[in-house]
């Protein structure tokens, strides 16, 4: 029996892909992005979260059968509404074996993988091949900056991105806009340059900075220390992508944000 650890299952996650979707959040991530808004996704082990609303254990061990069972009970509803299941996290690929076991048990459900790309190349390939759509998050192209802000090299990530382009599974590249960090013209241009000729790319999403990103840290006994000005409007610049003929959109931005 393959067991995994999830920290939430949320239905009607309208921002996590097409149609009506249910998103499974898997626990554990090799990265430590300084702007991460899901810090309960960092470590694999269940944790206790203490908040004004009380104490709660985040993280639940579940067998692949159990999770697939919960999802299969919604299969019809998800299919009837152009949707499916999204695996997110954390980094879902840290639980590759579990993820394979779950996906293989799903009964005709559209599967979307939301990944940082930071994973073993073999695991990455084997799971992507089981998916219908991939959201591939790209943060920073500069290796040093990437290491500084996420704690990891972006080499393996970019290798997986190149691998992804050859797998025949459609994917969207998503860039979280962090003011002054990832939203620089240089970074956006470098990303556009890196992905311009990749095959299978169906779109680019720039995600507006989530100013509530630090909300969960205190409850987990962690501190959120942004080195950027959170109130600064993000540079939601589509120009670098348009310039190389890519179809890009900004999500989550409202009039008073951005410039």
């Amino acid at each position, binding site marked *: 029996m393959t067991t995994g650890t999830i920290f939430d299952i949320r239905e*009607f996650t309208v921002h996590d892909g097409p149609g009506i979707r249910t998103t499974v959040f898997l626990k554990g991530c090799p990265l430590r992005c300084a702007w991460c*808004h899901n810090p309960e996704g960092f470590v694999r082990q269940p944790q206790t979260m203490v908040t004004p609303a009380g104490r709660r254990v985040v993280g639940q061990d579940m067998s692949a059968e159990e999770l697939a069972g919960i999802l299969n009970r919604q299969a019809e509803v998800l299919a009837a*509404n152009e949707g499916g299941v999204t695996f997110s996290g954390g980094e879902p690929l840290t639980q590759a074996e579990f993820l394979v076991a779950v996906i293989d048990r799903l009964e005709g459900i559209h599967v979307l993988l939301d990944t940082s790309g930071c994973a073993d190349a073999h695991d990455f390939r084997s799971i992507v091949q089981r998916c219908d759509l991939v959201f591939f998050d790209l943060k920073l192209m500069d290796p040093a900056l990437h290491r500084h802000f996420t704690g990891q090299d972006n080499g393996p990530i970019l290798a997986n991105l190149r691998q992804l382009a050859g797998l025949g599974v459609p994917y969207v590249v998503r860039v979280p806009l962090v003011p002054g960090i990832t939203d620089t013209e240089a970074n956006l241009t470098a990303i556009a340059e890196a992905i311009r000729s990749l095959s299978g790319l169906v779109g680019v999403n720039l995600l507006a900075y989530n100013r509530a990103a630090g909300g969960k840290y205190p409850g987990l006994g962690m501190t959120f220390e942004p080195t950027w000005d959170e109130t600064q409007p993000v540079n939601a610049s589509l120009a670098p992508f348009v310039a190389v003929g890519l179809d890009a959109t900004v999500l989550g931005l409202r009039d008073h944000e951005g410039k």
Partner: protein
Amino acid sequence: MDTRLETMRQSVRDGDHKQWRRQITVDIVPECERENLSWVRRSARLTRRMCEAEQVVIGPTERIVFTRTIPVVPSLYSPSAWRAVTAGRKLHEMGPISNICADWRMVLEQGLLGRRAAAQAAREKFAADPQSVEFLDAAIETIDAVLALADRYARTARERGRDDLAAILQHVPGRRPRSFHEALQCLRLCHAVLWMSGHYHCGLGRFDQYMWPYLQADLESGRLDEPEAEALLAEFFITLNKDSDLYPGVQQGDNGQSLMLGGVRRDGSCGVNRLTYMALRAALDVSMIDPKINLRVTPDTDMCLLELAAKLTQRGLGFPQYSNDDVVIPGLVRHGYDLEDARDYSVAACWEYIIPGKGMDVVNIGAVSMPAAVHRGIVQGLRDGADFDAVLKCAADDISAQVKAVANTYHDLLLPPAPYYSVLMDGCLERGRDLSHGLRYNNYGVHGAASSSAADALAAVKRMVFDRNEVSGAELLEALDRDYDGFETLQSRLRTEAPKVGNHDDMVDSLLVWLFEQFAQACESYGDNGRGGLLRPGSGSAMYYVWLAQGHQGMSEPVVGATADGRRRGEYFSSNLAPSAGVRVRGPISVLQTYSKLDYSRICNGGPVTIELADSVFRDAGAIRRVAMLIRTFAQLGCQQLQLNTLNVETLEDAKRHPERHKNLIVRVWGWSGYFCELAPEYQDQIVERHVYALGEPVIPVQVKEITRHESKTRIDATGCLPVVPDRLQRPDGTY
């Protein structure tokens, strides 16, 4: 909306029309006593004197007129005489007939002069029956009063050079309207006089069905184009907000001016027409608390219509409320409604189904406290050392006893005569019988309140005490007795380890199904309700989710303390069909799947599945379509009724102050979701700020407050179908 309508809306919001109100009381008691008038004649006299006392108000830009100037509806009897005529009898709520719906189609078609002719004909036919003659004379008195009022409006309009209005008011409400404009004016006046006569929760029925012939003729002849028609519609909706504060309800704004759209026709064909869409658009434009829009849907309803409705849902007004034809109609048929009538259903003040013109159902006579029944079963079963079946048996007996108790109090119900309302109903004049004697349908509605909390308590005991032996019966009894003081660990286990309704978990959901089966069984075996009707069980909670937990003045339903689901004394129960407060659920799909397990053909009184959406849901380009899909899923899964709320800033602010009430409140900002109450305060502020910006089109906060139905506030989730009267409307002597 153009600037004329914007100004008009603002002026109604500002209450400018209140300047015309006069604090005078129309006292009809002396003349009634002098003339020794019967009750029915007094009712007619009341309508007449109220119409006569009205002063004509014609706003310079108004195209649909009538503004009420006499706020107070007077008594029919002196206090002592009132006590005498009602001695030993049960009155429903405030007394007067309420919470039904007139046959507006017939009223428009015949006009009040047509109704007058019908009354005259009946008067000749029943000349030998003094009771009929008296009723018909009373009915005619009311018709003449309304016509005289219209005539005064017409003359004043003429004097002020408003020949357009004068022509309309000379024609309606006497005769069949010649245009959509006249039809709206006719409805406005006839409807307003109901409220002036002391009736309340006066429904507007299937508006897009009965209004469509008039609009269709105008559109086809080119007299009107769609934008002009929508402007009239918007003005009509605005006028319905003028008198809202004068209408009785649990709280201001909760006035039961329900308006139904969509659904099948009497012959079963699809009744959705252009007006269905236009009315939704007008409601969206106007964005005021009235009228309360209801929409009938099926699994096949056009997505365009659902998307338009979803836009209205986004507005955060708490409507439209959705009803599923495929479920409601068979349920009504099973309860004795003719198929054609069942297809013609509308909704009463909140959610109970009612047939316009034909239903004299009293749709909310009270509630059965499901948690009280379950609590009794648990306490008795554990004390006796009995098995779980014995717990269930005792709970079932208690449900049955509660049904009998509430129904027995209404067995001898006294409905006061209602000559004016009778004019507007199907067949009253023709039969020479007042509405209070009954109509085609004379059923009573009873609600099974706080059902999810009750099922949670049963499930906790079954799992923890009986199936797994993890908690001893004695310990649980003591914990309940002490309100979990000193038993916090047990309380927390009951809350977190036992299955809860709302997660599509068959173990607990089957107990919910069982509870409603027992409730339906008890209602079915009750028999005649005393008025030739039966009991219709429903699933609404109204304010009972608070009252059954904390008590309420004048309430006869039982109050319970701590319950086995880990809830402490005084904490709210679940409301309508929604998970208990503080229960973590995965989302709306599981909630709908849970409640789709109920056999709604046996619980046909209504009571919605209640789902709250964060307004951040709407920030994605595809969001409206997805919300429309959610509504369609509600219908496809076979649920009966859906109330979809959009969460707004006030709820978030309340959640900041009272996190314990909002543990399940989820805020989503792109790919990320968090439980609002678990966020550090500065981030909560951040989110509140986001939501403030997200509101888009302005909606007056005060009005949103009035009608939003969140679990969080004691003041709200009001339904008005309840036996309470706001102080300002209650007379010291209890009369109306």
